[in-house]
């Protein structure tokens, strides 16, 4: 059972899931999707800054204190707003941005009696649990770097293409063809619809020029699909989200620097999707080599102007920045993946057994798999989705709309049916 913070009390000092934060202790075998809930909460935590009108009538008007809140609430719970109206039977004024120079926060214990605003969290939780989460992850890298194994290890189930295709042959394909496999995994009542997009053939040929183009095309196609759905007159309640939320790029553990193909790929895709680079098969590097390698990679990334997730510009406040800085100091994570278990000191651990020792995958002294998993699933999963929706998708949308305006044509016939298709209106909705 999650303990929900009552509204009005101080915010927790750090986001749950971070190293100092209090992460509910789960058995190691848990994939811990329930942690995702914590990442959804932030927007609701800020709801605690709601102002309550001093002249209390039967109407309780809930007005957000700052304008950015509106964005978050709309994104997460556009459905919830309608529900709330229906349940209370009370007319609620529409949410509108107020200027920030309004009265201070009235703490919960100052209210006359218990209002029940915090019940919103409960409702939201129930709704999202029923609806489930969607997450699309793309893995890119040369063949044999352990992409499928890592994905299986991350989600503790056989979700990769290798495990799902019968008669799987490890052949190097001549062109890059993307394949996506969809799974629904469930944990503690939380359902996640996970899509893994694999890119076999990337970087395997002798001439790898433009091998990133099919991938760029795919990412943009997903944005286009979503854009078109959004502009329908009769929109679905929940637009199926096939946009790529995260792209994990596998670097071979050479110990030297980024290769030209890595630079080219990350330059092109860093603008349209959140890239998380990882060092694959890192059990071939000693600790010193690993540190040096990472440093050189970070230098190369900076020198080439490549921005990987978490990007500095999208840190929202100081708290985020501190947390993300810690992560940025450690990327790319050096990971080792496996699905075999061995006995170490009487415990069963995931690891690779060699003649000189057992490499424990979840031991932070051995490799950084646990850090990657925490980043991707336990702490930043929702953030990845938000960044994709609010930033990458918006950039794409603006570009497309500008293009269509420049062409003098509407985006499609659908937009005209909308009647008053006004670009500003559409943007303000979002």
């Amino acid at each position, binding site marked *: 059972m999650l303990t929900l913070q009552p509204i009005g009390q101080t915010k927790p000092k750090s986001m749950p899931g971070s190293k100092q934060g209090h992460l509910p202790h789960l058995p190691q075998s848990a994939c811990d999707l329930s942690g995702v809930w914590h990442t959804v909460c932030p927007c609701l935590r800020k709801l605690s800054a709601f102002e309550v009108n001093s002249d209390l009538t039967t109407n309780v008007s809930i007005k957000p204190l700052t304008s950015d809140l509106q964005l978050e609430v709309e994104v997460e719970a556009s459905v919830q707003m309608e529900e709330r109206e229906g349940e209370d039977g009370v007319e609620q004024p529409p949410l509108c941005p107020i200027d920030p120079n309004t009265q201070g926060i009235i703490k919960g214990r100052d209210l006359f009696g218990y209002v029940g605003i915090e019940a919103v969290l409960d409702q939201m939780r129930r709704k999202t649990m029923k609806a489930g989460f969607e997450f699309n992850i793309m893995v890119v890298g040369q*063949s044999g770097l352990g992409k499928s194994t890592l994905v299986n290890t991350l989600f503790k189930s056989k979700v990769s293409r290798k495990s799902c295709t019968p008669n799987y042959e490890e052949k190097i394909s001549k062109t890059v063809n993307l394949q996506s496999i969809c799974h629904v995994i469930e944990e503690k009542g939380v359902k996640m619809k996970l899509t893994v997009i694999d890119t076999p053939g990337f970087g395997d040929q002798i*001439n*790898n020029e433009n091998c990133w183009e099919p991938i760029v095309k795919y990412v943009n196609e997903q944005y286009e699909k979503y854009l078109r759905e959004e502009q329908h007159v009769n929109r679905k309640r929940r637009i199926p989200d096939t946009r790529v939320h995260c792209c994990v790029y596998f670097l071979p553990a*050479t110990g030297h620097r980024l290769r*030209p193909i890595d630079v080219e790929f990350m330059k092109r895709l860093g603008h349209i999707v959140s890239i998380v680079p990882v060092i694959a098969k890192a059990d071939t590097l*000693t600790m010193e080599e690993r540190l040096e390698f990472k440093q050189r990679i970070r230098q190369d990334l900076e020198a080439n102007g490549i921005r990987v997730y978490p990007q500095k510009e999208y840190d929202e406040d100081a708290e985020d920045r501190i947390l993300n800085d810690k992560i940025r100091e450690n990327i790319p994570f050096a990971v080792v993946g496996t699905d075999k278990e061995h006995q170490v000191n009487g415990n069963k651990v995931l690891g690779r057994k060699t003649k*000189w*020792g057992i*490499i424990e995958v979840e031991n932070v002294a051995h490799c950084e798999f646990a850090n990657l998993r925490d980043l991707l699933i336990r702490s930043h999963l929702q953030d990845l989705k938000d960044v994709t929706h609010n930033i990458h998708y918006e950039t794409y949308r603006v570009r497309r709309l500008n293009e269509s305006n420049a062409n003098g044509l509407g985006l499609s016939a659908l937009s005209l049916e909308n009647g008053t298709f006004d670009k500003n209106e559409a943007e303000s909705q979002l």
Partner: protein
Amino acid sequence: RGSEICFKTQPGHDKEYVGFATLPNQVHRKSVKKGFDFTLLVAGESGLGKSTLVNSLFLTDLHKDRKLLNAEERINQTVEITKHTVDIEEKGVKLKLTIVDTPGFGDAVNNTECWKPITDYIDQQFEQYFRDESGLNRKNIQDNRVHCCLYFIPPFGHGLRPVDVQFMKALMEKVNVVPLISKADCLTPGEMKKMKDRVREETDKYGLKVYQFPDCDSDEDEEFKQQDRELKESTPFAVIGSNTVVEARGQRVRGRLYPWGIVEVENPSHCDFVKLRNMLIRTHMHDLKDITCDVHYENYRAQCIQQMTSKLTQDNRVESPIPILPLSTPDVETEKLIKMKDEELRRMQEMLQKMQQQMHEQDL
């Protein structure tokens, strides 16, 4: 092994004993005096541990001041050929070792024909030797021909990649190719076996001719035969190199220190480094040189001559049964120099002879 001869002298057979059984000893002594030379080519993508392995094999530090190019510089990098020569002496035997390195191989985005500079280099060495051999003065021919090529296969893949296959196809007729699985500490024993099987399978499938160990003579003892068999079965060798010395089991060994254990380079259960070293240096070095001279060089020479004869017949010149080799006519300057040096050498030899005679007379 072959130089140890124990000849049995049986009493009563002295009259029939000629004594040429000591020839191998004489050859041995002469070659020790002369010293050996060996040229080794290392090829493979950057970051696979080539330099480290070469250092570990020959216990040298050839790449002390190496500067790694950053990604920007590497985008426009082409394949280079660099040579390092080092003189090693051990127990009175001198080895002049030349390592030919190929930085830039396989690193670019477009690696089409990235092996061309390497094949060109090998051909150049053959050509130079051919000219020297056909020249007038053959006393001091320098043998720069590549005797062995170590090709590094990354352990990350599932066997041979397209670039590996193309490279080996291009080089297998020109040089002895020894494929190695690099950074072998990346694979568990089970994965290693699978990888080796895959590589062997694909080598057969694509018809790649890699260096085969000669079968040992039938009169060798059983233990040697067993060793030989094991050697052949464990190809391609999975190697690890290290420039650092660590402490393991109370000894100081070359190895790599990880949080989960220590990998010893010279431990045969950890990797095949010892087998490679034995094969390359201790047992098969001479065989590699022989095959280079007898097979690869001869192939090149035959091709060359064929090309020349076909050109001659095309030009409708006088058809002579013996093809006229277009000798590289050295210019007048170098001819003079050669004559001068010859004179000097002859004079010095005469002086030496005189001195020897004098010493001989004094002794008497």
